[in-house]
């Protein structure tokens, strides 16, 4: 499934590259914004300009991995989910497998080139230390565990409330971008919001691995929190799906 999904990205031709071009532009703008804001300022809560640029770069490089968007809601919308119930595999596992194929393809075709080009843009792509790099990879795996758990939970909630999964997931994506710290490091948030957000499950998706990468995290504590949220989310989501499986409604098909 993952291989089929990755192959599907090529589509009829290579116009998907336009999407990558737009993403590349977005990264350049983020770099410019940080240079504008942090120019002449020293470290703020441990984050220097260089650290912040690396944080932004790695956030974009691993964006799909950390977002964990399986687009499960599309299956409810177009009715294709009904066929998936006939397969000898859990519905969510099928979507997760397809997600992994898409992610692998984008990592190869967008993330690695971006990483290689980063030095030309004056951004250091390396982790704070070799140890930080290793811990980052472990934390990234936990981020996927948490991210897929959130995706699974939100879809389950949509089924339980008999509302359109698209609405739930749209809200989740919008809130998640802020609460996860993917866009803005928690260290820069005013009014102590960063501290509060760091305890929420969304933080495990981006802020934790990214702050570990730039050497600005209490790694064992944050990774333990990731593990905790991952287990809690999967348990609740699994129960929710099991309890509400009779309520699944698909449009179209």
């Amino acid at each position, binding site marked *: 499934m993952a291989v089929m999904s990755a192959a599907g990205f090529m*589509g*009829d*031709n*290579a*116009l*998907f590259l*336009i*999407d990558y071009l*737009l*993403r590349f*532009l*977005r990264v*350049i*703008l983020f770099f*410019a*914004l940080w*240079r*504008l*804001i942090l120019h002449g300022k020293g470290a703020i809560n441990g984050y220097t300009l260089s650290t912040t640029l690396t944080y932004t770069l790695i956030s974009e490089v691993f964006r799909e991995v950390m977002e964990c968007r399986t687009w499960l809601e599309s299956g409810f*919308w*177009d009715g294709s989910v009904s066929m998936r119930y006939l397969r000898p595999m859990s519905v969510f596992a099928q979507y997760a497998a397809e997600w992994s194929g898409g992610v692998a393809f984008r990592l190869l075709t967008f993330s690695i080139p971006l990483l290689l080009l980063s030095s030309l843009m004056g951004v250091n792509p390396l982790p704070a230390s070799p140890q930080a790099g290793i811990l980052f990879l472990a934390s990234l795996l936990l981020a996927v565990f948490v991210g897929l758990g959130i995706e699974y939970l939100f879809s389950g909630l949509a089924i339980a409330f008999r*509302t359109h999964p698209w*609405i*739930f997931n*749209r*809200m989740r994506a*919008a*809130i998640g*971008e*802020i609460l996860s710290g993917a*866009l*803005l490091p928690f260290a*820069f*948030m*005013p*009014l102590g*919001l960063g501290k509060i957000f760091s305890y929420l499950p969304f933080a495990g998706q981006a802020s934790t691995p990214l702050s570990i990468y730039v050497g600005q995290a209490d790694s064992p504590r944050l990774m333990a929190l990731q593990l905790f949220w991952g287990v809690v989310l999967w348990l609740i989501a699994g129960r929710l799906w099991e309890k509400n499986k009779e309520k699944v409604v698909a*449009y*179209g098909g």
Partner: protein
Amino acid sequence: MEVKGFWHWVRHTLRLFALYGKMDTLGLMRSMGMLLTMMLSDTVLNIAAVMGMLLLAERFGGIGNWSKYQVLFLLGYGGLVDGIINVFFGYNVAFISRRLGRGQFDHTLIQPQPIVVSLLTEGFNPAFGLPSLLPGTVLLGIALPHLVLPQIAGWWFLFAINMVASVAVVLAFQFAFGSLAFRAPRATEEISSSTMHLLMQLKSFPLDGLGAVLTGSLLTAVPVGGVAWLPCRALLGMGGGVTSYWLTPLLSMVLALVAVVTFWKGLQYYGRVGSQRYSNFGHRN
């Protein structure tokens, strides 16, 4: 065949606005739960869209040479542009590549009215779109009392002209890129999502200090600057001179011309090959 006059189409367009407005309201009122869910989700989405920049402005007391309240004005203006597009160009009119890529444009082509009338009216959704107008309006309401605006007659008129021009910039960009779906319906069905996401995510960025090449690119090739930065600089008196008020309208006209030519050429191609794909969701039918 009888040729209909200009005023006929104006009246026809207004009738369609009234009809679609009524349909939209009835659709939303079918269920109180749906009404509340939509309002909540749209409000949350629109607040989340500006939250990052809002937090940064609060944390650093502004961004670059923009004060905190000038940033609020920028965010409010951009939010209002987004809201107007949601209200007037919903149902995937602004996301035109979806309609083209899904083979739905045939619905528009068989209507007994000009294509432009269909595109202008089919996306009107005042009820579903209303929550998206609120955050921008609120932010402008908070920022304006704290700003010293340029002493110029007709400031609000210039504000309105620039607002319309900014909406036109977004639509022109969407249609120019979205026209790719005439030629590659599968690969570019979602290109409008990418382009809209790009514009909406970057519209709130102050582009000062980016350098001439990058700023020029962001006003032409990817006109993010025309959505909020350029008009706000002029309206806040940061742009220098009276001519600055007319830069965004001028930009919108050039981009609209590019979009019309691109769309027309795509339509010509579509007239020869048609579409082998069809999916019925995501548009007013």
